[in-house]
């Protein structure tokens, strides 16, 4: 009924090694600048949150001052690159067993310097129990926050900011998790939190939610009644017992009452007529496994039924499940999903969350940080600093499960600018950026993972080369190699660790790992050189006409590679459009990724071209050519997470043609994106395997022109 005191798996087994195996400074990173702490203490797991700033190297480009010079010298670069320090905001979340709480608090105390923080937001049933310890160790005042309020705040936050946060559980499929694309409108939804009891909350807006019901039959019932029936004390062990039991030995099934499945009545004989019904009529012993299984079914079915009744009453079809009963346990996700499907006849969807265990801590943190207004920003999961979903298959014993989750991390980067949908998406809720789901497509998964492994040497070399003046570049590059290699191995084992696995997520993970070791832009030098070469050739190259027969319109173009591509490919195309009276919005990446041109580079390039070309010059002056940023730092593009400024401009100017260029943006992503206006997807296939798969040859050109259906 209400949220519980006890949560967590209770798996702090005595046989477990109590020492912290990871170096603590890898777990509690960036503590030096930490501020705003929050803690969520459950029955066995503690979740700690803090906000910190990260100093990053970033490559900045700056135009040389050309005044007073008539012409450039032959080998002079077109602009200068300087590596500067930039400060970005990051949220750190750490989950660990309560056993470690004292050691962790000590570590934090020792490393916390210059903090202005005076209070720590605390939530969860254990917050009271550990209040004195926290206050004594950290010398912070403990501020208790309401459990459900925190949970819901946390839930809203992850649903808004983490693509592929929610997933459905599919029995017998590989992998069992199917991630949902982020729904642009997350409200209203039903949150069913299964702690020791069950709370059912209807969430209508960021601040409005209502307890609509609950049940006292929850995780505590499974645990408590299970302990009485089986003499098994630990929650995880009970689940393990249940996964091996046969409930039909304990439950009275329809076939026990009717003597078989009854065709005339359309009943399945396997339905449970009465839970524990056989233990009432037979004078016999029952196995622990069978009783645990029967109990699990009884509780899961009951919760699913109530959730469906509430969903129906409030006309909701999305129900998120959380709480320690669910937390990463395939056994309970399976039975809950079954129950929801059964009782709603498929009309209600049971959804689970990758970061379910963090919701309380995230919410408590947000409560404490309200004056910083964290909700006005967009945030992104940092793949380099997050552990990912460590699912344990039901075959794993409790000890193995517990060990795999000893320390779990989540890091969220605050993005410079808020991200929104491209207003021209045909149907935002059904938009899926990625063309191929590698979690599904085992063949493609294998290929791409190997491909990224093989390319790793080259990336490491390029990273080192990009910082010739740095003494520790080689050492950092090696750390990068190790980190990314490990990520790739994790993804081979658990493709669902960071949501749906795609070429985009593999590329993004690599960018995050590079940034982690201060290689913000390994391609900066390459891009600089190529842009220089291209600019010099521009004057000699005959203009190529790519566009044919466009009427006067506004085109929004999203661009990628630097050098020849942009200067000799895109600018001539843009110029052609401009000559035909078309206004052009040219959007480039906000941050560096591979050798893709960044917004700041595009500004310099445009400026230089304007110096040579009156058409581009006047277009820039008259704002018929607008250069903006996409909000992305990925080689791929998610049209549901675009810079708010770009979206506003698209709307304001009434863009009616979208040109998406490059393999990452037009093939790996958005190949199937449906828009409300005409679109052009352009790319050269630069990967032999992919070319073959698509039935073409290496360096074939994809030119996909689409007109929206009437």
């Amino acid at each position, binding site marked *: 009924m*209400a949220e519980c005191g006890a949560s967590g798996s209770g798996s702090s087994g005595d046989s477990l090694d109590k020492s912290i195996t990871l170096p603590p400074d890898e777990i509690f990173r960036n503590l030096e600048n930490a501020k705003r702490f929050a803690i969520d203490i459950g029955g066995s797991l503690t979740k700690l949150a803090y906000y910190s700033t990260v100093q990053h190297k970033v490559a900045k480009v700056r135009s040389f001052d050309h005044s007073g010079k008539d012409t450039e010298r032959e080998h002079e670069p077109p602009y200068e690159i300087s590596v500067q320090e930039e400060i970005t905001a990051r949220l750190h979340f750490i989950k660990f067993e309560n056993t470690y709480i004292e050691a962790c608090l000590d570590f934090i105390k020792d490393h916390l310097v210059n903090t202005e923080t005076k209070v720590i937001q605390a939530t969860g049933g254990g917050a009271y129990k550990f209040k004195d310890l926290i206050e004594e160790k950290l010398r912070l005042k403990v501020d208790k926050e309401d459990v459900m309020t925190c949970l819901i705040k946390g839930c809203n936050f992850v649903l808004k900011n983490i693509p592929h946060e929610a997933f459905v559980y599919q029995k017998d499929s590989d992998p069992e998790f199917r991630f949902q694309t982020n729904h642009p409108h997350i409200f209203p939804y039903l949150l069913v939190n299964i702690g020791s009891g069950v709370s059912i909350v209807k969430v209508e807006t960021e601040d409005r939610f209502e307890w609509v019901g609950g049940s006292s039959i929850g995780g505590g019932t499974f645990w408590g009644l299970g302990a009485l029936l089986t003499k098994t004390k630990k929650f995880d062990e009970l689940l393990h017992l249940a996964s091996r039991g046969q409930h039909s030995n304990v439950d009275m099934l329809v076939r026990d009452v009717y003597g078989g499945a009854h065709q005339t009545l359309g009943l399945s004989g396997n339905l449970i007529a*009465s839970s524990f*019904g056989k233990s009432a009529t037979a004078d016999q012993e029952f196995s622990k496994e069978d009783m645990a299984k029967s109990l699990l079914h009884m509780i899961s079915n009951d919760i699913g039924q109530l959730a469906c009744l509430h969903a129906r009453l409030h006309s909701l079809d999305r129900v998120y499940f959380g709480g320690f009963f669910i937390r990463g346990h395939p056994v309970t996700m399976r039975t809950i999903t079954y129950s929801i499907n059964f009782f709603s006849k498929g009309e209600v969807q049971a959804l689970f969350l990758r970061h379910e265990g963090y919701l309380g801590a995230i919410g408590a943190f947000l409560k404490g940080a309200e004056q910083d207004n964290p909700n006005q920003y967009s945030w992104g999961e940092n793949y380099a600093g997050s552990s990912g979903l460590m699912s344990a298959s039901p075959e794993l014993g409790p000890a193995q499960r517990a060990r795999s989750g000893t320390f779990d991390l989540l890091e969220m980067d605050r993005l410079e600018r808020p991200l929104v949908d491209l207003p021209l998406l045909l149907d935002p809720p059904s938009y899926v950026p990625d063309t191929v789901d590698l979690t599904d497509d085992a063949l493609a998964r294998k290929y791409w993972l190997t491909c990224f492994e093989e390319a790793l040497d080259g990336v490491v070399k390029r990273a080192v080369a990009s910082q010739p003046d740095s003494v520790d570049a080689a050492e950092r590059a090696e750390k990068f190699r190790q980190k990314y290699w490990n990520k790739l191995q994790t993804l081979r084992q658990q493709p669902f660790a960071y949501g749906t696995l795609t070429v985009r997520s593999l590329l993004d993970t690599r960018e995050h790992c590079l940034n982690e070791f201060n290689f913000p832009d390994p391609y900066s030098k390459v891009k600089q050189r190529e842009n220089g070469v291209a600019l010099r050739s521009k004057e000699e190259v005959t203009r190529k006409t790519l566009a044919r027969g466009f009427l006067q319109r506004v085109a929004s173009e999203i661009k990628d590679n630097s050098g020849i591509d942009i200067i000799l490919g895109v600018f001539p195309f843009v110029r052609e459009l401009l000559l035909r009276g078309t206004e052009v919005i040219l959007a480039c990446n906000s941050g560096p990724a591979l050798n893709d041109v960044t917004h700041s580079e595009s500004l310099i390039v445009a400026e230089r071209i304007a110096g040579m070309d009156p058409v581009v010059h006047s277009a820039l002056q008259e704002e018929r050519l607008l250069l903006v940023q996409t909000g992305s730092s990925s080689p791929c593009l998610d049209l549901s997470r675009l810079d708010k400024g770009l979206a506003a401009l698209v709307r304001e100017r009434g863009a009616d043609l979208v040109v998406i260029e490059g393999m990452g943006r037009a093939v790996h992503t958005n190949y199937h994106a449906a828009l409300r206006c005409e679109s052009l997807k352009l790319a050269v296939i630069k990967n032999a395997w992919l070319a073959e798969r698509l039935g073409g040859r290496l360096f074939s050109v994809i030119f996909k022109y689409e007109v929206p259906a009437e």
Partner: protein
Amino acid sequence: SGRVGPAGGLGCSESGTFGGPPAPIVFPWFGLDIGGTLVKLVYFEPKDITAEEEEEEVESLKSIRKYLTSNVAYGSTGIRDVHLELKDLTLCGRKGNLHFIRFPTHDMPAFIQMGRDKNFSSLHTVFCATGGGAYKFEQDFLTIGDLQLCKLDELDCLIKGILYIDSVGFNGRSQCYYFENPADSEKCQKLPFDLKNPYPLLLVNIGSGVSILAVYSKDNYKRVTGTSLGGGTFFGLCCLLTGCTTFEEALEMASRGDSTKVDKLVRDIYGGDYERFGLPGWAVASSFGNMMSKEKREAVSKEDLARATLITITNNIGSIARMCALNENINQVVFVGNFLRINTIAMRLLAYALDYWSKGQLKALFSEHEGYFGAVGALLELLKIP
């Protein structure tokens, strides 16, 4: 997977002769409801037997009548609920008493054997039976007892039975009742309820499992849902937790126990009411929630466990019934089924929970003949009483 109720009924063959007046239905008149745990048998004892009839009455029929009416217990497990007997009833023009008998479903083979021994098949009577067991034991009736069962839809029978029994009353008293001040043991009163406007009605039948029906008229009803957490769950869990062997024993233990030692209440977590969500401190937050702790497991008695099991199952049924009533927009809820037999704790709790959580919008009603409506419905089918 809840308990699923059958839908389309299997009609009986017409016994009336085509064209002419229907032939009188031969005695004995039985209605049988074979559930997962209990068999419910209603028997109409004609009291207006003429001397002529008496003369013609075959020996086996007479012996059945004598056996059933002169005993209150049959074998070691069969029981006649004498207090429920309906006197001076007129059925199909005959006057007589209606008897209510029950025995465990696992004694069904013995019952069939008795039918064989007493040569029932020679009476050319039709056995109208409902409940899952009508299907399960159909073959045994035929091969062992040489008896052809007429299988009837259990929900049809249930509704028919309830409406009929309510209409005839309870020997001059009201059949239907409710509780006033159910939570207050001093002031709690069982009061008659006049079910003069029965529709719409939510009917919650609590047997081994639970079926919930929305009834809009005599012939218009639907099964809304069901749950597998029913009387069988209460008794089954009590057997495992306390070692009790009968339903009566389980209830007796429950009456002496304290469930708050077993359950975690809202106040155990929040120190009082959880105001943010408007939850009272006395509400159960987690059934058996205290049993997560070893010390508390060691401190509870069997009686406490029996009480907690009863409270858990009852509250859950109340909660599902309330949600169904809301979804179906119905505000009177009738609870029937043998789980409620001699179970005042459960009835008062259902009455209280429904009233409290619906803020007085829902009324819990009960009926004296709790578990016998299916069997009565089967008898009415035999007699072709609409």
